[in-house]
């Protein structure tokens, strides 16, 4: 039996931009409900881009949770594997950090260290332009199915997770408890106190970037 593969389960996105936080919230949830062997690492990648290269290069199997714009109905989950991942990432404009993550993949490839198996679990966001906002219900509802998809993908490689007898507390995150989902949502200022809209060019949709790629 060969050595255990290094597995990285990565949630990426900016949790300050509403559904952009899907990836981070999904991997946090997985961490709370399941325990993994030491060769499986769960990570809140945020918008860290280049800082993630090292971890991606080290992984044999990479699972990524992310909010991805496929132009599908909000909340639709789409699963993409291997060669389709970078190509798909390049196909459309998605969000601020994803250009960065696509580059992380390309750079890992340039070093000859692309993970052997890549799995992107993407969910179509409903709302991105709500700075300080949280996941919309349609997207939040996909956290459990997304986690199930990750687990069944990993099971193909014989990687099993142990369901925890009771989930870890909601305040347990992969980075810091200050940005845990509950307190993040509860601590939000009122609509009167906070401007809840983005740049109108973004809110109404800018035609310029999307078509180009």
């Amino acid at each position, binding site marked *: 039996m060969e050595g255990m593969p290094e597995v990285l389960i990565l949630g990426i996105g900016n949790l300050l931009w509403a559904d952009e936080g899907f990836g981070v919230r999904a991997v946090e949830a997985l961490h709370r409900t399941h325990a993994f062997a030491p060769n499986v690492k769960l*990570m809140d990648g945020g918008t860290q881009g280049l800082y993630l290269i090292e971890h991606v290069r080290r992984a044999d199997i990479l699972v990524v949770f992310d909010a991805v714009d496929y132009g599908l109905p909000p909340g639709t989950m789409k699963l993409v594997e291997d060669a389709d991942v970078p190509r798909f990432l390049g196909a459309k404009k998605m969000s601020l950090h994803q250009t960065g993550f696509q580059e992380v993949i390309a750079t890992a490839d340039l070093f000859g260290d692309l993970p052997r198996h890549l799995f992107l679990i993407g969910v179509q966001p409903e709302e991105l332009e709500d700075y*300080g906002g949280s996941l919309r219900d349609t997207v939040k509802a996909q956290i459990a199915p997304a986690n199930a998809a990750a687990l069944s993908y990993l099971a193909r490689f014989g990687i099993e997770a142990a369901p925890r007898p009771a989930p870890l507390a909601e305040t347990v995150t992969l980075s810091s408890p200050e940005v845990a989902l509950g307190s993040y949502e509860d601590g939000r200022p009122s609509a009167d106190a906070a401007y809840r809209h983005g740049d109108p*060019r973004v809110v109404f949709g800018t035609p310029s970037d999307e078509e180009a790629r």
Partner: protein
Amino acid sequence: MTIQTPNGFTLDTSGKRIVVDPVTRIEGHMRCEVNVDSENIIRNAVSTGTMWRGLEVILKGRDPRDAWAFTQRICGVCTGTHALTSVRCVEDALGIKIPENANSIRNIMQLCLQVHDHLVHFYHLHALDWVNPVSALKADPKATSELQQKVSPAHPKSSPGYFRDVQNRLKRFVESGQLGPFKNGYWDNPAYLLPPEANLMATTHYLEALDFQTTIMRIRTIFGGKDPHPNWLVGGVPCAINVDGVGAVGAINMERLNMVRSIIDQSIRFVEDVYIPDLLAVASFYKGWLYGGGLSSKNVLSYGDIPDNANDYSAANLLSPRGAIINGNLKEVHDVDLRNPEEIQEFVPHSWYKYADEKKGLHPWDGVTQPAYGLGPNAKGSKTNIVEIDESAKYSWIKAPRWKGNAMEVGPLARYIVGYAQGNKEITEQINFVLKTLDVPVTALFSTLGRTAARGLECQWAAHKMSYFLDKLIATIKAGDSSTANVDNWDPSTWPKEAKGVGFTEAPRGALAHWIRIKDTKIENYQCVVPTTWNGSPRDNEGNIGAFEASLMNTKMERPEEPVEILRTLHSFDPCLACSTHVMSEDGEELTRIKVR
């Protein structure tokens, strides 16, 4: 029609308009428009921040001790420096003193970020404005090896075989059609001046730097715990010290400190054997290209950073210099007081915000962040699809910060000019070394290349300063003090009913400060003035243009439809990691749309 700006630029909007949008996607999108004359020389420049970023309003009412965790999510590059600035402003407001060890560890983490960011900026973002990786495919590996041994004899990776291997890897990559990080450059533009061998050497180091950068960042994981988002703490640092402890998990022990030592030593070697020699080699081919100085020869500002001793934020105790220079008078460096309501003020006559009285600026403690989006009468396009901005009206999501009414440049070059003017020994020696090696006068500093050189020199400086603070940390621990946090005032019941504070750092890209007001233990007002606010500032009431705008003025473009020169200069401010642009002609017709590195 020409307009004379009070800060010394002659704007002429009569020529062809070129739009680059977006230039950057981190810390908000950025757009740039210029007018060029019949010789393709830039005669007007307009920089627009095109994204609303309302961090200030989402922090309202939250626990001040949590603010760092939100601010470090502002962008993916400056995470640590925002977190540090945030904990400093809360400590300032509540009068919390941190232990000496916490100061040393924070300094090491901040310097680590400087080293990392500068290195990655040069190779990953900026090098491709000067270096042509496609030309590298034509290089002779043997001649490249000779060049390498000439510019940096100490660097071990210099054999012809090594360069041949890299060249083959590049070829395979390019032939596979993915080009990856090198996609969509202007590789046949005459603005590129390096011979193929220098291109191969620098491209090879691009790969070495990308590989090495991950090593540097381990320092912040060792002290900050979580990866890739290190933890911070109001009152100190969230790591315990137990020098006699063993094992890889838990408190900082001797084994970990030795690991930090080793990484620092490797960083110094990489910067001195690879980065600095590359910088000098590249600069030697471009020293006739002295555009891009902008405000740097006039007004520069730094808040200072890296307190030698804990809790003393006076200029004399800051190793990274503090000061302001006005009208290019290097003989007089003004002190900077972030608390003085008459010094730093933000104006909004050309920003998409509303003040009760827009003739006046507001000090950040009294800052108001109320959006008011709209286009001027001469804008082309619509509110949702701007074709051409009208800079006579409001035109940016960035406010216009001013120091005593002056538009200022911030960043490594500003810091180095302030340090040079103050006679800082280390900085002066570094600058003189570069000027002598390249055989250029001191005025050459005031340029895009000067900005790029200052960043490299600061990277070297920061790497050595990490070593200084590691020594200091170990000495303090050996003297029996292993405290890392002061939690005396952790409990909000110990806080005053109302408090205000300011925290500042020198982020890789420039002066950064957060101002906080606390009321009834919650955040009442929080204002961040980030380096990009200073450098990307729009015009003010008097018509002074900002640092990005000034830096583009009078630059000759080889081919206006390929804005290499614009990107080169804007990138020299370190605005982002990855960006996309598309270029439009004056009538709005899209000429080309490309992804730019």
